[in-house]
């Protein structure tokens, strides 16, 4: 994991994006969650050699980024951070799958390379859609949407709690780490012994904090359940958003416009 401060800053920035104001930000969280799921399933369900069929799906992230006024460069940099993990597994495809499936002039393209690039494109698309979902909705609203979609209340409460204390504890961890690193010289003192004690302290502090939180919740009348405001209703705009994207994505998945357009431009070479 990257530096604590960097990760926290990232986290905050993504949250701040959710506070922006655009028509897309106001779409009901449920509509956005379901549309994103349809998108991911459509993208993932393509065969591993259907590289070109992936391109039309860029319409979804591109339109949402533009419509929501999200910063492209920031999102791209976040997406690129994740790509290496996928590359590690994907890079074996060109090595193992050497059957030539296409020849473009002097270059012979093996199935492995096609499936490799398809993996890269898939991860670009799916990672982008998840990040866009968060930055257009915000985590608390997302949790409420999930609760309305039937996620157990206990788990929703867990997610909201985790989110609320994340920053507090992460800042505490950052201070601990800074204090230790300042006392360490050339990597000495960063071993297991001091780490165990340090994390143990952090754990005890967190535990005690939880007990204080629980007492203050009790004193405010907590009786085992959270009450989420369920005022927001699924409006016409939300329905249109979900239906529109759902139908468009399914059409792209079923009719492969890239292929149709390609056939149109190349004269239908088969």
């Amino acid at each position, binding site marked *: 994991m990257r530096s604590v401060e960097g990760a926290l800053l990232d986290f905050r920035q993504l949250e701040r994006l959710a506070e922006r104001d655009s028509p897309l930000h106001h779409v009901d969280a449920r509509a956005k969650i379901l549309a994103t799921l349809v998108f991911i399933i459509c993208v993932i369900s393509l*065969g591993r*050699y259907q590289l070109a069929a992936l391109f039309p799906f860029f319409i979804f992230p591109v339109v949402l980024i*533009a419509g929501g006024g999200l910063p492209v460069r920031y999102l791209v940099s976040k997406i690129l951070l994740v790509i290496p993990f996928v590359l590690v597994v994907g890079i074996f495809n060109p090595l193992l799958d050497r059957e030539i499936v296409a020849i473009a002039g002097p270059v012979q393209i093996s199935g492995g390379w096609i499936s490799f690039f398809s993996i890269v494109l898939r991860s670009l698309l799916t990672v982008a859609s998840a990040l866009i979902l968060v930055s257009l909705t915000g985590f608390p609203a997302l949790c409420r949407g999930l609760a309305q979609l039937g996620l157990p209340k206990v788990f929703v409460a867990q997610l909201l709690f985790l989110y609320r204390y994340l920053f507090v504890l992460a800042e505490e961890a950052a201070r601990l780490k800074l204090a230790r690193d300042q006392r360490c010289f050339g990597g000495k003192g*960063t071993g297991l012994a001091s780490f165990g004690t340090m*994390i*143990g302290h952090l754990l005890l502090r967190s535990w005690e904090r939880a007990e204080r939180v629980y007492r203050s919740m009790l004193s405010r009348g907590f009786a085992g359940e959270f009450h989420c405001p369920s005022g927001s209703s699924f409006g016409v705009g939300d329905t249109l958003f979900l239906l529109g994207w759902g139908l468009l994505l399914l059409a792209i998945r079923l009719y492969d416009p890239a292929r149709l357009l*390609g056939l*149109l431009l190349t004269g239908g070479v*088969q």
Partner: protein
Amino acid sequence: MHMADALVSPVVGGTMWAVSAVLIARCSSRIKNSGNDRLVPLMGVLGAFIFAAQMINFTIPLTGSSGHLGGGLLLAVLLGPSAAFLTIASVLVVQALFFADGGLLALGCNIFNLGFFPAFVAYPLLYKPLAGSSPTRGRLTAAAVIAAVVGLQLGAFGVVFETTLSGVSSLSFSSFLLLMQPIHLAIGVVEGLVTAAVLLFVHRARPELLDGAVSPQLSRSLKPVMVTFLLAALLTGALLSWFASEQPDGLEWSIAKVSGSKELRGPEAGLHSGFAAVQEKIALLPDYAFRKQNEGQMVQAGTQLGTSLSGIVGGTATLLLALCAGFLASRKKSALKGSDAFR
């Protein structure tokens, strides 16, 4: 060892989603019925603690490289299986959404691999009996290392199994297994040592926390959970694969490829023939000729080649169109903003 969306097929992802959803529902109702309100803030704060703890690195003994805590086993020891499972799942949800670790479709796989094995296998079946009720230093360390290693081995096996079943990666089951298991043996040992170090500290400072009285225990009710989850897995697997057989996924695709049957064509004729006349007239690359070395053998490759060339051209064109759409949308938006400014 988070799995990524890009390497998961919808059938595998969907099945594991269903499995994890059943587990989350079971654990949630178990926590709710336990009537232990204290768990609610405790789980939340400890979830945040795992996040925070993962941000602090340490030097791995003997190697000099640095690692960080996983935390699954630690949570299981502190909270008990059900609460630990929910906490791990919540951490993975946040990681998937904010740090794009893993992905939304792969979330089910990740929750199962990283949550189920430490919480429902490694802790109750290994750590608890091995450590006993009042463990010594050595015994606790040994129990933690063994439980962590087994938990991570099972998790890594899950990753390999799910990835191979998805068929997106070309790695064969055995070679991927050989790649993953040894790495996770090392990771497991380190994870066990770290967990033991933290537990020993807690044991010295506040031993009552380790009595395990916090969470409802699993004991004999393990069977119904397992049966439910197995049934759910079978049912969703069967249903999903029935649905999915309309559209070939990775695995079916590779099978089709091996058996030589073709599946690359999109939907047949109807639309295409309608386009045919137009195509002839406006085609940019008419009669583009392809090299065919071995007529008999290369026929299939030839058609694939045709499809992939037109695919690449079409793909690039649609990508450009998509970008244009985005450009126009943002232009329109800034124009709107501009008019706002004038008002």
